[in-house]
């Protein structure tokens, strides 16, 4: 379980998150949705300790994450835009990450590498990869160590339909295996397909947290996209 308590983040004068309280259940897929700049990526990066909160705390499995780097061995992260050292080959990058995690994982999960057919790209330097293929490498790394928690920031945004369905199937499969998955997305059909829980974020505050069905029911709309749109309009007024 991941718990965020009274979490605030400012960039200069801009308040990105306003004392957020949130607990994310284990074994579920939780989607964070909201307009651009609502603070979705900020929450994900705070959980990884990539950025530091101004106030509040984060606990993972009841342990505070500050000054503890080891908890990240249980996390796989897929950034919205990944860029790797451009002179290295795909193979080298995978070797490097494995080497860095050596002794800190139980098993390797190379299913995505096979399904994305990344082996044919192994000897290419990263600078010669297409955006979509870079994102496939990014996804493969997130799932590689079979981590307990998967944090995916707009995972399918730059993938083609085939790759996108492969990834979504993998996400579902990992959930069945008991993994906890947190993702952000703008694609509501995807959220509806994958997520058990939805967190709707607006201007740094949580507007709704609960099940996908609950949200649709509450707004009386026919699907998630319309429900979210209704909530956004409601918030504007």
């Amino acid at each position, binding site marked *: 379980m991941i718990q965020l308590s009274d979490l605030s983040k400012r960039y200069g004068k801009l308040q990105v998150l306003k004392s957020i309280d949130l607990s994310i259940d284990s074994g579920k897929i939780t989607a964070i949705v909201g307009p651009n700049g609502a603070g979705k990526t900020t929450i994900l990066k705070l959980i*990884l*300790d*990539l950025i530091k909160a101004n106030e509040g705390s984060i606990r993972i499995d009841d342990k505070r994450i500050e000054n503890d*780097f080891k908890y*990240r061995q249980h996390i796989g992260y897929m950034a919205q835009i990944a860029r790797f*050292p451009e*002179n290295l080959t795909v193979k080298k990058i995978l070797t490097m*990450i494995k080497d*860095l*995690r050596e002794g800190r994982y139980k098993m390797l999960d190379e299913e995505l590498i096979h399904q994305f057919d990344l082996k044919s790209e192994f000897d290419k330097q990263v600078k010669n990869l297409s955006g979509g293929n870079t994102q496939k490498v990014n996804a493969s790394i997130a799932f590689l160590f079979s981590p307990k928690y998967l944090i995916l920031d707009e995972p399918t945004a730059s993938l083609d339909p085939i790759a996108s369905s492969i990834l979504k199937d993998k996400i579902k499969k990992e959930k069945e295996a008991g993994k906890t998955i947190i993702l952000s997305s703008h694609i509501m059909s995807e959220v509806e397909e994958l997520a058990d829980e939805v967190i709707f974020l607006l201007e740094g505050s949580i507007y709704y947290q609960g099940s996908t069905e609950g949200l649709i029911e509450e707004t009386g709309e026919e699907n998630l996209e319309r429900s979210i749109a209704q909530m956004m309009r409601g918030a504007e007024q």
Partner: protein
Amino acid sequence: MRRDIAKIFKYEVQNILHSKWLIFYTLFFFLLTEGLFRLGGGVTKTSMSMMNVVIIVVPLFCIILGSMYLYNSREFIQLLLTQPIQRSSLFWGIYLGLSIPLVLAFTLGLGVPYLMHALQGGQDMSSFWALLGNGVLLTFIFVGVSYLIAIWFDDRIRGLAMVIGLWLFFAVIYDGLVLFFIYMFSDYPLEKPILGFVIFNPIDLARILLLLKFDISALMSYTGAVFEKFFGSNLGMGLSLAALGLWIIVPLGFALRKFMHKDF
């Protein structure tokens, strides 16, 4: 922790060894030194000519290449930070992985011509060692300074403007300011304040160190002359070495502190 530093160092070196700029840097020193030898200079003469090249080019190259490299590897740093690695391990792995290839490139470019020409004659190599030592110190200093700037300024245009400005300041403007100061306050005893000024410019420190080593008072700048008069050669060299050491430690210390708390 040491194991993580070594791993990051290893991959960083592999990455930077592919860089064309590093080859260019090595060739630059090689061709220039080799050229000076061929023009008939002996070891000491070549070292004297190379002195100004080393104290100007090494800082310029290190500060620009260092900051460019760091700006370009922002996403890579982010990727590594999502792994179970301590931030401080990453910090040191990157610093060493960047500065040691530069040290090696410089050593190779400068050293090979000396090896080819000087070893036959059994000439006095002390000027070469002084040059090499100073170049290595300047590399560690200016990679550290570029690191600090690249961490401090997120905007790379501002960062690059800052590193070029800083280099200009140390290499050119600083001496002008010191001279201006001397001119303005020529009625006062200025020797001690001047000594203080020198400490704040690593390029000046390296220049003084080399001039004291080469023992060429005719070429000595005002600050160098004051230095020698005040401390004598040996103490002067010891002090400037210590100050250069501080120039490695202090910027890196600030960079580390900033790095530990930075948002990526």
